[in-house]
């Protein structure tokens, strides 16, 4: 155990190592660790915020979905109503058209029968005149008896 100058040299070396470590080696590492701690804290806070905003978004989404559902059922009901209305309308229209068609056919029939009757009347009158002519043999002057003939025609 001899204490000598080695002690001084070792103390000087130790002092230099302390200074070097304290000044140059540890600060960057301490800063990096502190920075990482901050990053992690920030990240956790961010995640917490994200969770909260997710919850509010979820309620928002629920509200929107409910609204959309209500609107959709409303639209469906409206469409149903419109469909029955349209069907009814077209039914009525078709009925009316049929009615019109029927009316037109009836009219035509009536017209035709009137026409046929008139024709028949003419023919019968002619026939009667011819028959009478034959019977009277030129006795009847058409000019004189035209009134009588007209009366007959009207009677037929």
């Amino acid at each position: 155990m001899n204490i000598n100058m080695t002690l001084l040299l070792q103390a000087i070396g130790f002092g230099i190592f302390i200074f070097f470590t304290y000044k140059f080696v540890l600060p960057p590492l301490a800063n990096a660790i502190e920075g990482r701690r901050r990053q992690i804290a920030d990240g956790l806070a961010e995640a917490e915020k994200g969770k909260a905003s997710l919850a509010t978004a979820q309620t928002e989404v629920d509200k929107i979905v409910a609204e959309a559902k209500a609107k959709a059922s409303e639209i469906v009901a409206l469409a149903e109503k419109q469909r029955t209305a349209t069907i009814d309308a077209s039914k009525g229209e078709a009925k009316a058209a049929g009615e019109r068609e029927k009316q037109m056919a009836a009219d035509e029939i009536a017209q035709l029968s009137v026409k046929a009757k008139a024709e028949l009347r003419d023919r019968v009158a002619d026939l009667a005149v011819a028959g009478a002519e034959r019977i009277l043999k030129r006795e009847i002057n058409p000019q004189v008896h035209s009134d009588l003939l007209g009366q007959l025609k009207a009677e037929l």
Partner: protein
Amino acid sequence: MSEASQAAQSPTEYIQHHLANLVHNVQPGGGFWTVHVDTVVTSMILGVLAFGLLYLISRKVTAGVPGKAQAFFELVYDFVDGQVKDIFSSGDRRFIVGLSFTVFVWVILMNAMDFLPIDYFAGFMENVLHIHSWKPVPTSDINTTLALSLTVIGLVIIYSVKAKGFGGYMHELFCTPFGSFPLLWPLNFLFQMIELISKPLSLALRLYGNMYAGEIIFLLIAMLGAAGIGGALVGGLLHAGWAIFHILIVALQAFIFMMLTAVYMAMAHEHH
């Protein structure tokens, strides 16, 4: 295992040879002005390597995902920082952490030189480098441990004065532990001086004693090798066992030195 060149030595000579420092006399005649070259060179190489390497790592540290080197560095730093935080929770602890970190890293490396197989190392020094005596463990030299502990106590005194002011420190020296009655001043001062001297002495002697004793036990085990093949085998086994146990001692002594450094520094900031 002993070498052929040492077979002629007596056990005492063998041990003394291994425990001798490489001495350089700065002034003729020696005395205080001698230097243990082996101690200084080994410890400085270890210190420069360790702190240089850590400096290189620290230049590339990132707050993001750390590399493996940075992760290891952070592991050691967090360990020291956590211990210091437990002791000294109030105020800026950066200097205490820096001091404790330096002590821990340097001491554990110097202690770890004990793992080098003594005779192989000595043989390499003797036969390859032709250096006759070279003690590889700087902490088994009382000069190193005393240098460490005296530096620590010097820093403790400086920080006591810084934290409490010169008057405050003097008040502490003269008025504690027994009280501020003037008749008690000499007694208080005596107690404080005993405390101040015992702190570095106990620090230095604890580390020195442990490492020196460890080395001697390695040497004693190595001497079994002189007893033939059986002795060599038993010696090898014992050597392995003691080396494994020594891993604990190496780390533990470095840890104790670091912790006491932190405790003394924290006490310097305490007000009485």
